[in-house]
């Protein structure tokens, strides 16, 4: 049964009418009254920038917080491949319903129908909005927008801007935000990090931040707070996320009462450049769009050490085409990743460390010519060459799966409100739309949907009844307590004076999580992790070394706080994975697979969202359930054969 705290608030009516029904019934704030409400938006990625700019355009008093020096540097900038929308410009049979269906199926039937349908509906508005703002999407010779296909879909619904779609979309949203900053609609706090969330009288009253340049701890009060702070893929240490991505904002909110949903749903992306050595600090994604024209293979025989070009066709195993004939190289991410792991585990890995599989463009180059391939993927090929020193026009790329995206995140209802009234979560920071696995090109869509087309409506519904009622200011004792806690926490890291750096702990923690809670999980491995992580965490608390001080810019100290939160999250990820006795999407429990080695769901017992309540220690958190109701779509085995 669904826990009473976890009411999804899905509006009544047929699936296609729910969002319209919501908008027809919601409370409104009169344009002249909007400036009386202060909304604090933490994060300036696609979700944060779009929300902040739109709220400011509507007239709300908005403040934006980012730890970056400029809002334009949020991690969204790194997205390469594209953004989905049900425009059906190709006339290939796309529709809102189909995008809705594909997303639910892609998520292995672990997402909420109402939210996902709304996402598919507003997807079409996103493309219109971004084009109006000057995003230079790829075009065909006739001048109309070009699209391509992406993993998990048989349609061409993905819009793109060379291999830099995230950059161009974020610049679009950032420019709109910059306009608001310039005309005074938004106040920007850069190089500032959220360190706590403050609740007063049962609602979120504001946040506490730390100025990274001078260490100043400071409170900010508001009528509503939006966390658009991205995902927690860096819990694995090595991931495709930017170095600064972290879980701190979401985790601090969790500690203050926001339930954390499905932390074990993490996405391992199939096409990343394999690790080259021990000093590696992050992994680089090779966009999934490459799988449109690249063919994935490994040698048929173990021990075949010949260079790729010398291995004849008959002695290659194009395993995705063999196992999944209808989707082939475009099989969804979780499936492709596991297949790559199995190929490498079987001893057929390629490259100096035998830790990759080939992604081969020779057939595409022969078919389309080098120029066309260059036009489509030139910058990705260049990037690959810079990193590996190998030229992918001549030698096949080597790829291997890496942590990339996190479907789990703060639990939110249909209005994107967390279990703390007045605290919202948007973009990758929430858990809302992708179930147990996200389809390619759907994160950008969700971030912009949340920021442009959902939050600006739902926040008004919350604020309207608060008109002219005073809210607590920063002199309230709850803020003072949180400030003191924040100061003490950072001083505490400095005072340990142990021997190991935050990075050392992060690397060790990441190894445990990757081995035990990565692509394949077992009850035994997870139990081991739940012994090992707390033990390492105890060491962290006594043996951490942070040099420098707290009153000037100190990246070691920043990192200490982030690693502290990753430790706590890591425990919750493993507990969540252990409790979910089924395989679904990115969560693959070796004990639960069918005869062909595919994920075996247990719809009877696990067709629910697991949302965790913090009780003081992540090893003791309480697990709550939101049952998922499927009214429109029939639960089916997810097959891509």
């Amino acid at each position, binding site marked *: 049964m669904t826990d009473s705290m976890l009411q999804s608030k899905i509006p009544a009516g047929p699936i296609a009418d729910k969002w319209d029904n919501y908008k027809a019934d919601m409370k409104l704030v009169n344009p002249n009254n909007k400036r009386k409400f202060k909304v604090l938006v933490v994060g300036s990625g696609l979700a944060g920038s779009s929300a902040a700019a739109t709220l400011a355009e509507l007239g709300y008093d908005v403040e934006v917080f980012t730890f970056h020096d400029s809002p334009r540097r949020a991690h969204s900038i790194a997205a390469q491949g594209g953004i989905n929308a049900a425009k059906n410009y190709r006339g290939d049979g796309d529709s809102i319903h189909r995008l809705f269906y594909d997303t639910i199926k892609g998520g292995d039937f672990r997402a909420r129908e109402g939210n996902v349908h709304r996402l598919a509906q507003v997807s079409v508005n996103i493309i219109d909005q971004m084009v109006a703002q*000057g995003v230079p999407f790829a075009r065909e010779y006739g001048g109309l927008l070009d699209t391509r296909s992406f993993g998990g879909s048989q349609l061409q619904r993905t819009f793109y801007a060379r291999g830099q779609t995230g950059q161009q979309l974020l610049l679009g949203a950032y420019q709109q935000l910059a306009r608001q900053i310039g005309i005074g609609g938004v106040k920007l706090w850069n190089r500032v990090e959220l360190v706590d969330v403050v609740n007063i009288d049962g609602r979120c009253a504001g946040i506490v931040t730390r100025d990274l340049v001078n260490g100043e701890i400071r409170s900010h009060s508001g009528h509503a707070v939006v966390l658009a702070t991205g995902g927690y893929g860096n819990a694995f240490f090595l991931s495709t996320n930017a170095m600064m991505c972290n879980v701190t904002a979401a985790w601090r909110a969790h500690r203050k009462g926001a339930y954390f949903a499905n932390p074990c749903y993490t996405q391992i992306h199939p096409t990343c450049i394999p690790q080259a050595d021990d000093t590696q600090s992050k992994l680089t994604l090779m966009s999934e769009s490459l799988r449109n024209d690249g063919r994935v293979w490994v040698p048929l025989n173990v021990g075949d050490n010949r260079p790729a070009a010398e291995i004849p066709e008959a002695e290659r195993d194009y395993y995705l085409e063999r196992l999944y004939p209808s989707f082939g190289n475009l099989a969804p991410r979780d499936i492709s990743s596991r297949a790559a792991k199995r190929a490498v585990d079987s001893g057929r890995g390629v490259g100096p460390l035998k830790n990759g599989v080939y992604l081969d463009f020779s057939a595409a180059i022969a078919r389309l010519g080098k120029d066309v391939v260059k036009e489509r993927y030139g910058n990705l090929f260049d990037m690959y060459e810079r990193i590996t020193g190998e030229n992918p026009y001549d030698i096949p790329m080597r790829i291997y799966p890496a942590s990339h995206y996190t479907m789990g995140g703060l639990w939110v209802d249909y209005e994107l409100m967390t279990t703390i009234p007045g605290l919202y979560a948007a973009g990758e920071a929430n858990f809302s739309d992708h179930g147990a696995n996200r389809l390619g090109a759907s994160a950008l869509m969700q971030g912009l949907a949340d920021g442009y087309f959902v939050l600006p409506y739902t926040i008004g519904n919350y604020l309207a009844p608060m008109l002219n009622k005073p809210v607590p200011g920063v002199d309230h004792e709850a803020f003072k307590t949180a400030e003191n806690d924040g100061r003490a926490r950072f001083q505490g890291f400095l005072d340990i004076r142990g021997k190991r750096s935050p990075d050392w702990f992060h690397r060790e923690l990441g190894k445990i999580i990757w081995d035990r809670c990565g692509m394949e999980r077992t009850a035994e491995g997870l139990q081991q992790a739940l012994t090992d992580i707390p033990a390492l965490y105890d060491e962290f608390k006594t043996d951490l070394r942070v040099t420098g001080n707290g009153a000037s810019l100190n990246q070691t100290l920043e990192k200490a706080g982030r690693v502290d939160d990753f430790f706590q999250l890591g425990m919750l990820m493993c507990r969540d994975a252990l409790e979910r006795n089924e395989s679904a999407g990115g969560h693959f429990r070796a004990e639960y697979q069918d005869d062909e080695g595919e994920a075996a769901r247990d719809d009877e017992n696990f067709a629910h969202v697991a949302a965790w309540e913090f009780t003081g220690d992540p090893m003791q958190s309480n697990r709550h359930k939101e049952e998922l109701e499927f009214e429109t779509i029939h639960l089916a085995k997810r097959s891509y054969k």
Partner: protein
Amino acid sequence: MSHHLENLTLKIWRQSAPADGGHFESYRIDSISDEASFLEMLDVLNEKLIDEGLEAITFDHDCREGICGTCSLMIDGQAHGPQRGTATCQLHMRTFKSGDEIVVEPWRATAFPIVKDLMVDRSPLDRIVEAGGYITATTGGAPDANIIPIPKPVADAAMDAAECIGCGACVAACPNGAANLFTAAKVSHLNLLPQGQAERWSRVEAMVETMDEHFGSCTNHGECEAACPKSISLDFIALMHKDYRRAKVKNRKLISQI
């Protein structure tokens, strides 16, 4: 297989605060894999410093994929180092050899005060965008995306300009500390597109004038293009100047009509 570089000497700029004098400090480092990136080499050095109880070197970085524009190092006097079209984070140690001495400094420009060590404040670049680097299109009212076809060459040219990552290497490389390449990239991206026409003249005026408030003036050295990790073309500067002159004429005309 990877090889290791030995006996590297790093001369690194250390400065504890904006007002502080700052100085070079020498560090020796060994056993660096040639597969490592330049920033991973600095990570190794920082771990070593922490081991020795010393404060780590502050430097800006994030994506490490050459797209966020956060990394910003002067390496041996060159913005983003010796490899053309490559941001610092994409530079790999295979570009160097054992025994090398490498000098690492922050961006040096009047408009970019040093925050600490190798980190500078580049927010004047944001001021330029805030002044006009956008298309006013408030959320919700946009027409269908395919209503205005945009010829592919136009869209491609806009994209060539839009690829700028806002790193500021062009400013650091310029003897005058000018931000013309950055500003031109931004102006051109929007001024080339049909959607950008309505604000074309006011945009270029506002952006150029804000640029002039913060940065030095361009005397056509061309160092910026050579340092730019995205190889943004100098042609965009010509386009910006042309638009700026036309804007002045156009606006004067408008004024005389009142």
